[in-house]
């Protein structure tokens, strides 16, 4: 087991509104699996991902990563946890505009224990020829693949992806999903993808449905479908 959450809640203020993002989430993630978390906007899926990734802390409940308790971890321990174990992919790529593709990956490999060279990470997502391009010179799909390269370059145990195809058309989105599946297959990295796109669930080992900050149901697929078989 990689992650284990019990009774997780999260409440925060957004402007003048109090948001109950999570209202008691119990969930386990297993090593090497590809999980898709489905939910509408506001279902709490991003919040859950952020807490599992050590980006945020829960209001109550517990979260464990392997034998490490993240619930009460200090800011410093969370930083080290993220540095050593987690790779993130965000909906809007969040690349640093002033750095090239290679440098955007290097900014992570430079602080990692056992990284692969940035060039290799970019080659794995099919961007061997775009090493020295700035984000502004890349298409949306390419930018997202740079973000994936950045996330996998440190060879993390888990890859947490927040709406990785949300800003992309379906064709480019499928390329990105192929890259993620490839990572999961080849490197045995646990991959969690959150999305509101039902179709993507078909490529997962398990599909977790979230609604109003709770787990509504978990469905285990008999067979994972290839991303290229998906249509939306």
């Amino acid at each position, binding site marked *: 087991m990689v992650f284990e959450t019990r009774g997780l809640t999260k409440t925060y203020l957004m*402007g003048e509104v109090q948001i109950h993002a999570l209202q008691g989430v119990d969930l386990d993630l297993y090593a090497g699996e590809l999980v898709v978390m489905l939910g509408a906007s506001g279902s709490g899926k991003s919040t859950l991902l952020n807490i599992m990734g050590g980006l945020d802390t829960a209001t109550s409940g517990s979260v464990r990563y392997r034998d490490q308790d993240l619930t009460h971890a200090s800011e410093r321990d969370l930083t080290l946890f993220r540095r050593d174990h987690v790779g993130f992919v965000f909906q809007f790529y969040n690349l640093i505009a002033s*750095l090239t593709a290679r440098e955007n990956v290097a900014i992570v490999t430079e*602080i990692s224990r056992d990284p692969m060279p940035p060039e290799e990470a970019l080659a794995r997502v099919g961007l061997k020829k775009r090493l020295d391009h700035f984000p502004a010179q890349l298409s949306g799909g390419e930018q997202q693949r740079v973000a994936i390269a950045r996330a996998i370059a440190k060879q993390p145990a888990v890859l947490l992806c927040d709406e990785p195809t949300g800003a992309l058309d379906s064709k480019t989105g499928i390329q990105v999903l192929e890259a993620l599946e490839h990572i999961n297959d080849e490197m045995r990295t646990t991959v969690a993808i959150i999305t509101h796109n039902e179709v993507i669930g078909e490529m997962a080992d398990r599909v977790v449905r979230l609604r109003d900050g709770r787990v509504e149901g978990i469905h285990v697929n008999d067979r994972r479908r290839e991303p290229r078989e998906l249509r939306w």
Partner: protein
Amino acid sequence: MTGAANPASSAGRGARLRALNRKLLRDLSALKGQAAAIALVIASGVMTLMIAVTTLDALSLTQQRFYEDFHFADVFADLTRAPEAVSERLRGIPGVNRIETRVKAPVRLEVPGFGEPARGLLLSIPDGREALLNQLYLREGRLPDPGRADEVAVSDGFAAAHGLRAGDRITAIIRGRLTTLWISGTVLSPEHVYQAAPTDLLPDYRRYGILWMNRRALASAYGMEGAFNNVVLGLEAGASEARVIAEVDRVLGRYGGTGAYGRDDQHSHRFLHEELRQLRAQAAILPTIFMLVSAFLLNVVLGRIIRNQREQVAVLKAFGYHDRDIALHYGTMTGMIVAIGSALGIGFGLWAGSGLAGIYTEYFRFPELRFRLQGWVILLAIGVAAGAAMLGTLRSVRAAARLPPAEGMRPEPPARFHRGWLERSALRGWLDQPTRIVLRNVSRHPLKSALSVVGIAMSLGLLVMGAYQLNAVDHMIDTQYRQVMRMDLHLSFSDPTPARVQSELRHLPGVLVAETYRSVPVRLLAGHREYRTAVLGMDEQPYLRQLLDGRQRPQRLPPEGLLLTDYLAQDLGLRVGDRVRLEVQEGHRQTVTVPLVGVVDEPLGVGAYMRRAALNRLMREGPAVSGAWLMIDAGQEATLFERLWELPAIASVGMISEAEGDIREYMADTLLMFALVFVLLATSITFAVVYNNARIAFAERSRELATLQVLGYSRAEVSWILIGEILLLTLVALPVGWLIGTGFAWALNQAFSMDMFRVPLVLTPGAYGFATAVVLAASVAAAALVVRRLHRLDKLSLLKAVE
């Protein structure tokens, strides 16, 4: 828990921030306009600090060396005449270490080829041995040959002004006798670093010279054989100056001693001391202002950079960068701006410092004024700049370092908007949509808007202060020479003269008005404070030498009582109605107590004033006068000078227009040059502040503006949103800036008030007008620059991109 050390990251720490450093450089180069503006402000602060501290150091050090190496005396005393044997009693005073008796003779000088009268002071030097105190530094030639009675060494300022060299000849009138003197060399003395005549504020090298002659020769020419009329004493370390002075006064009292005094009251030392005091004020005030402004700018700019990069910060943290890495990143960004600013400032400072050295050697005659660049000064300047930068950025950097990554990843919550009072008011109907956006943008972040307003107001304040200096110095000199000193010539007599001389003077060719005065050297005492000056006895309402009241109106002298320059009264802690002890330093040397009946507002020098009849009574003498003021017909000046020159009773003739010219030149060299540099710096700061504000407003609004353009708003309408905001903030800043400027000017006025001059706190509409014009021009230029940027904006890509 991952408690174990992280070998890769600690081993490669030096190299591992390479990508982050590259981001730093690219961010900086994208910000180069703003960064350069801030660096310039820092450079200004570093430069002023360096100049002030370096000059202060150079002057103090040179002064100290000159004083030590050439044995500058500690106590000085003048007397009528005492036999040489009295010197033994002075030597016996506890605490006295060295003593040198001298003969001191005021003389009139004639220099071949120079048509005007000049004044001089002849001082004796021991025959055939070096003086124990106030030794001479030989600039050229040699000291007078002990065997020769007609050789003198002359002060280098006088020699240079007349092109006199060793071997040249001048004529002196000593005790009415014309004597030809040969120049053996030119010299400098620690006693006359500042070579102004005792009654003058500024050195006039052409009309005042100091000459040194062998003791025996001078004594015989001046009727002082076997006697002395001046003595200087050196004290043992730790000796009480006050006690020695009291003893010296006791010994010399019966020989017509006019009161011994320490270095503080020594003419040359006092001016040097005042100059150092002023530099100290400068070293503290100006850099402080610049550094505060740069701290403020860094705060605004870096704060907004970090806010715009919050998602980048969040991503870096998501991937495991520590808080300290983020802090270091933005700290380094600040550090680089500080480094560039400091380097520029040090460069400018070195260049300007060596220029200043030239000015100082004109006014202070040292063997050599050496400007040295000391490591600690540079470190101090950089330290102050870094401190200011830290002050300005600590909050933003800390906020970035502590930003919770999940929060940074979320878009900033939409700002809370509400309808302001302006929109609820009757004006509502008048406001179009873009104007409403402007008003809401400004009012939704009151703190941010307030900071922008304060920034503009501060730079406006600096400009007001700079313009104030430029205007006020002129105003000060005009007041002194149009309202206070209205005479053309100032005569002083060698001895008190019967008052009827006034009618003789009036009948000289070319004299339009003549007024006489009595001048008596005194020591003013009030509590523990004392001040040596002269009381000027004048007519009830002098026309040529006016006494102004606080509202610049000429005032009458009451029949009894004393008036003091307001600055002097304040310095002595006196108010009108208080009684002042007055120790006369001439004649019977009586001590009397007189009431302070009024204060006089005058910008140059300080003085004490009385009705002449009252002063004569106090001196127990008839109607005697010490000098006269003349208003003359310029056409007959030459004839008049010839006649005056023939009157042996006249010790000196001063031309007021010359003095005014000297003062103007001095001000132009010192205060005004500083003020001009200051105005230039303030102007550049204003542009920096205004441009920074505009750029940031642009950066924050560009998406919104692009949206509006896509929705069909015209360029002009969209530009108005930017221009309107800049304009609105500038207009609000104007009155605040006028207030701040007035405050700055007041602070400067307080810091720079001294005996020699007091720049009045006169803020003309012109000063405010100039400052306002610069700010408006800067706003227009900044608005034009950002509007041009707006027009070049790629709207579509901006709409697609996500902040």
